[in-house]
C-alpha cells in the first residue's frame, strides 16, 4: 500500500490535498532535492511572470532589471517561512522537523509555480479582452496552493484546524520579525565592515608614511 516513488508522491500530494500530506508523513516520503528544484522553479516563475509575458499584458521597461527582488520573493521568503514556522511550532508542540516543514511547504507551492508558467504561456496567446482566463488560472493556482500549504502545516505538526490557523498567523508574524532582524543585522555588519576597512586603510597609510 502506497509504495510510491518520489515523483509519484508529488502527484499523490498534489491531487489529494486533504490526505496527501498525512500519507506522506505516514510513509516518510518526500525529499529535500525536490524542495531545491521547486524553489529554483519558483524563482524562474517569478522572473518569467515579470519579464517573459506577452507585451500586451506586462510591458516593463527593459532598462530596469534587478535579480535581488526575485531572490527575495522566492528563496528568502521561503526560508523565513520555514524558520518562522519551525520556531513557532516547536513552542506549540508541533511534531514537524525543520526538514519536513521545508519539504511539505515546498510541495504545496507546486500549483503556484505551474500557474505562473501557465500564465506566461497564456499571455502570448490571449488578448486583453480575454483577461478573465488569465485570472481564472491565477485564482485556481493560488487557492490550490493555499489549501495545500494549510494541510501541509496541519499534517507535519499533527495539529487540529484551529491550531493550524493560529500557527500560520503566528508564523506570518514571526516572518516579519525574522526579516526585520535580518535587515538590522545586514546594516549592522555593513557598518562593522566599514569600520574595520577604514581601520585597515588607516594603518596602511601609517605604515607607508
Amino acid at each position, binding site marked *: 500500500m502506497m509504495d510510491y516513488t518520489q515523483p509519484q508522491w508529488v502527484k499523490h500530494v498534489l491531487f489529494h490535498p486533504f490526505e496527501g500530506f498525512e500519507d506522506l508523513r505516514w510513509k516518510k516520503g518526500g525529499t529535500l532535492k525536490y524542495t531545491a528544484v521547486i524553489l529554483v522553479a519558483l524563482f524562474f516563475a517569478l522572473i518569467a511572470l515579470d519579464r517573459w509575458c506577452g*507585451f*500586451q499584458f506586462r*510591458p516593463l521597461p527593459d532598462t530596469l532589471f534587478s535579480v535581488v527582488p526575485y531572490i527575495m520573493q522566492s528563496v528568502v521568503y521561503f526560508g523565513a517561512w520555514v524558520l518562522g514556522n519551525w520556531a513557532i511550532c516547536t513552542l506549540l508542540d508541533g511534531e514537524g522537523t525543520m526538514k519536513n516543514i521545508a519539504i511539505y511547504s515546498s510541495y504545496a507551492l507546486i500549483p503556484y509555480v505551474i500557474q505562473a508558467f501557465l500564465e506566461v504561456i497564456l499571455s502570448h496567446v490571449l*488578448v486583453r*479582452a480575454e483577461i478573465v482566463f488569465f485570472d481564472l488560472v491565477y485564482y485556481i493556482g493560488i487557492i490550490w496552493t493555499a489549501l495545500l500549504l494549510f494541510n501541509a502545516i496541519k499534517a507535519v505538526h499533527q495539529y487540529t484546524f484551529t491550531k493550524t490557523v493560529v500557527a500560520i498567523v503566528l508564523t506570518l508574524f514571526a516572518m516579519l520579525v525574522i526579516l526585520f532582524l535580518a535587515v538590522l543585522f545586514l546594516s549592522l555588519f555593513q557598518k562593522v565592515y566599514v569600520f574595520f576597512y577604514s581601520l585597515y586603510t588607516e594603518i596602511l597609510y601609517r605604515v607607508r608614511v
Partner: protein
Amino acid sequence: MKTHLRRRLMQSAAAAVTLLYAASALALPASADEPYDVYNYNRLGEAVPSQAGYLAERSVSGIDLGTTALNAPSDLFKDQDDFFYLVDSGNNRILKIDSEFSEIVQVYSEFTMPDGSKTKLKNPKGVYVSPDTGLMYIADNENARALVCEADGKVVMEITKPESTVYDQGLTFLPQKILCDNAGNIYIVLNNTTRGSAMFNADGSFIGYFGANSVAQTATVIANHFWNAIASEEEKRYRARSTPTAFDNFDIDTETGFIFTSTSAGSTDTDIVKKVNPEGYNLFSYMSNYIWGDLFTTWYSGTSYKTRIVDIDIGDDGSINCLDATTGRVFQYDEEADLLFIMGATGDQVGAFTAGNVTAVETKGKGCENIYVLDAGKGTVTVFTQTVFGEIVHDATEKYNGGYYEEALGPWMEVLKRDGNYRRAYLGVSSAYYNMGRYKESMEYAKKADASNRYNRAFERYRSEWLREHLTVILLIIVLLIAGGWGLKRYLRWLKTRPKRKPGFWDWG
C-alpha cells in the same frame, strides 16, 4: 617691400584659417548652432537628446525695424493677412509690421474717438485683430479701457468698467489681454479676478465671466469643503475660501472657435492650459493635471525653477505653442497636446532670452514654419525657422491627426531615420501598418514605442488572421492527436492482454 610680403603672408594664413573653420562647421550637425541642447521627452518622462525642429534665425530689435528701441513690449499678434502687431507698452504705441518682420507698416500711437477728439494709449498690454471684420482690439491697461478701432486708427467703441451688478464695483478694470470670437463677443483678461475673463457683447455690454480655472483638489481644499459643510453661516464668513488661480493669457483658434487659456501662477498644477468651448466647458478637463512644459522642476540654491507658461499661441495647423518664462523655452504641442518640439533657452545669444522676461509667442504659416518670441528684457523679437526635420514631423503629425495613417507612414519613417528617439514616430508607423493590415510589423513598432494597448490591438488581429490561415492544419493536428491517443491506448491494452506464448525460434526474447 618686406612689409608688403608679410601682409600677403598674413592674409593667406587668415584665409587658410577661415577655410579650416568653414570646413569644421560643415562637419558639425545643424543643431550645433543652437546655444542650448535640443531635447525631448521619451515615454518614461526622461529627457533625451533630440533633433531640432526649429532653429533661431535672427533677432529683430526696434532699431532693426527702423524705429526707436522697444520698451518693455508685452504682446505680439499676427492677423489674417500675416501682418504683425507688436504692443510696445513702454512707448505707448502699437507697431504694425510686415509679414517678413523686416519693416514697419504703420505706427499706432494716437487714435481718433467717435466724437473727433484725439486719444493716446497708456501702457497698452494686449492687441487682437478680428479676421472677420478687420477691427483692432486693444487692451489699454492704464487708461482702464479697451479700444475697438478700425485699421486707420478710428475708434469704433470704447469699453470701460461695466456698471453691472455682476461686476464687483470695488474692483478696478485694468485690461491685460483681449480677443474676440467669431460671433464678435469680446473677452478681456483682467488681473484682479479669479472668475475668468470678462466677456462683453459685440455692442460692448457686459455679459459675465468666461472660462474660470477649477480649484486644485488639494488636501486643504477637501478639508475646507468638509468644514464648510458643517459650519454655520456666521462661521463661514470668516473661513478661508478656496479660489482657483486666474489664467493670465489666452488665444483663440479662429478656425474652430476654441479659446485656449494659459496660467502662469507657480502655485498650482491644475488647468495650466485649457481648451474652452464657447459654453465655457474645458475640453482638456480630463487632463487637468497634465504637466505642461518641463516635466521636472529644477531646484537650485533654494529656488525652484518651475515652468511658468506666460503665453499661448495656436498655430494655423492647430499646434499649441506654450512659452515658458522661467527657462525661455517654447514648448510646441500638436492639437492632441502631444509634445512636438522644445526650443529656446536663457542667455544672450540669438535663440536665448532673458530669464523671466519673455512675454509673447506667435506663429506663422500653414505648417507653423516660423515661431516668433518676444523678449521684453532685450526688446527684441527672435525668429525661429522650421528645420527639414520639423517640417517632416509637422507633415506626419497633420496627416496622423487627420486620420490619414497610411499617408503618414512615409513621413514617420523619414522622422525615424533622422531621430530614433522620436517616440511618436513609432506610434505613427504602428498605426499605419495596422491600417494597412500588416499586423506583424504593427506589433513590432508598437513594442518599440512601448505602447502596450496598440500592441494588444494589433496582436488580436494578427492572431485571428493566423488562426484563419492555419485552421486546416490545426484541425488536422487535433484529429491526429485524438486518433493517435486512442490508438495508443488500444495498443497498450492489447500489449497487456495478449496471450503470452513461448518465444519462438526467431523471436528476441
